[in-house]
C-alpha cells in the first residue's frame, strides 16, 4: 500500500485522516525529563522481567 498523496480541503496531507497520531500531550511527555526518568526505571524493570523469563533448564 502506498499512502495516498491526496490533500484534504484544508490543505493537509491525507495522512492526517487515516493514521492514528499522538496528541500534543503524548508528544510532550515523550521528551519531558521528569516523566522520562520515571519511564527509564519502569522500562528497565519490564525488560529485566523479560530477561528473567529467558532460557530454562530442560524440563
Amino acid at each position: 500500500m502506498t499512502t495516498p498523496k491526496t490533500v484534504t480541503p484544508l490543505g493537509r496531507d491525507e495522512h492526517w485522516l487515516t493514521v492514528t497520531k499522538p496528541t500534543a500531550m503524548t508528544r510532550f511527555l515523550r521528551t519531558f525529563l521528569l516523566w522520562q526518568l520515571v519511564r527509564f526505571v519502569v522500562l528497565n524493570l519490564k525488560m529485566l522481567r523479560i530477561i528473567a523469563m529467558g532460557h530454562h533448564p530442560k524440563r
Partner: protein
Amino acid sequence: MGSRVVVLGSGIAGHTAASFLRKWLGKEHQVIVVSPKSDYNWIPSNIWVGVGLLRADQVLFPLPPVYKRVGIDYRQAKAVAIHPEGAADEPSAFVDIEYTSADKAGQRERVAYDFLINATGPKLNFDATPGLGPDKFTVSVCTAEHAVQTAALLDEKVERMRKGERQKFLVGMGHGTCTCQGAAFEYIVNLEFELRHRGVREMADITYLSNEYELGDFGMGGLHLRQGGYVTPSKIFTESLFAERGIDWVTRAHVSKIEPGRVFIETLAGEEKELAFDMAMLLPPFRGAALSAFAKDGTDITARLFAPSGFMKVDADYAAKPYEQWRAADWPRTYQTEFKNVFAAGIAFAPPHPISVPRVSSKGTNITPAPPRTGMPSATIGKAVARSIVDMIHGAKEPTQTASMAEMGAACVASAGANPFTGTAASITVFPIVPDFEKYPEYGRDLNHTFGEIGLAGHWIKILLHHLFLHKARMRPLWSLIPE
C-alpha cells in the same frame, strides 16, 4: 583429558557462547574460536554509524587481545566444511578452516573438536536481487564498513540538498524474503531525525519499502499491545510514527531488480512498479554461511546437516506444513543437530518456517518476511548451548538447557533519533517471540508481557545497552553479570 570445544563465528551468539564456555570450563578444556574477522562488531549501533553519529571504531574492537587474556584460542579463519564423523585418515570429528589473516591467508587447517557450535550468522545475500548492495547501486548498514560508506553517501546527499536539490531516500528491504525489518525501521527514523538536525529535512522525500504485509509486522507477524483501553496492533503505532515524521511507505513488495536510481518492485497484488531514488539503503535477504559437510567416506552430507537456505538443521520440526498447522512446538529447544556434539546458535540455525503469514503474489513470487533472530535471542541461545555443552562434558547425556524462541521473550529498543535530550526510541518487549496460539489463543502472546512505548527513556536505555554490551563483549570485570 580435557575436551575441545570449537565455536564457528564470533558474533553475538558465538562470542557469548565462547565467553561462557571459557568461564565455566576448567583450563584443562580448550575453547577455540574460528572467525574470519578479527574485530567484534556491536551490530545494532551500526545504525548510528550509518547516519554519521558514530565512527566505526566506536562499534568495533579487536578480539585477539581479549581472547588471549581469557585463554580462548583464536584462529582468524573461515570454516569451510564440517566432518562430523572424521575422515578416512582422521578418526575424530573436525572442521576444515581457511585462514583469512594477512600472514596466513588461504592456508587450510583441520581443527578437531569434541563439541562444535556453528554460530556463523547470516551470509548477506546481496546477489539475490540484481543491482542490490554496496558493490552495486544501493547501500547497507549490515557491517560497520557498509555503514561508513552509507554515512559518506548521506553527507554527499546533504550537500546537494543544501544547494537546493531535492533528494529521494528509499530505505527498507531489498527482496521479498528479507528479515531484519527492525534495522531498516531504525535506520529510516534515524535518517529522518538526522536530516532535520542538519536543517535539510524539507528537501528530502523519504519512503520505506518493505515486504511486510502491514507496517509493524517485523517478520514476527506483528504484535498486539494494550494501549488507551484497546488492544492495538503494531501496525497502528508504526504507521503513526511514520506519518508523524512525514515518511511515506510501500508495503507488500518484492524488489525484483535495481538499476542506478531506480528500484523495480512487484507487489502482492501482482502490480509492477518503479520507484526512483537518490540514495537507497536496502537490506539483503540472509542465507546461511556457505559450509559443506562430509561423511567419513567423503560423501557430501551437506543437505543432511543444512536446510536449502544454508542454515543448520537442529531439533526443530522441519516437516513442510500449511500455516494453519504451524505450532510453537515446531521451534527448536536445544539447538542440537542430528550429531549429538554439534549445535547451531543465533541466526545460523534453520527456523522451521516463517513467523509471519506466508503470502505469494498473483505471479507466484514469495513475499513473506523471514523470521528475525535478534540480538537477545541469539545471545540467549548461545549461552544456553554453552551451558548444555559444559554439562555434557561433565557427564550429562543430553543437552540440559532449552531456549526456544516460542518460550522466550525479547526486549528490543529501536532508536528513533539519537540525542540525549530530544531523541527517542521505541522500547518493546514481546513474550513469546514466536506466537503460541495454543497457549494464548487470541493474539498468540501474553499481553501482560508484550509492551511498547516511545520516548527519551528508550534512547537512554539504547545508549546504556551500547556501553554495557561492549563492556560485556570485551569481557571486562563483572561482564558475566550483564544480562543477554
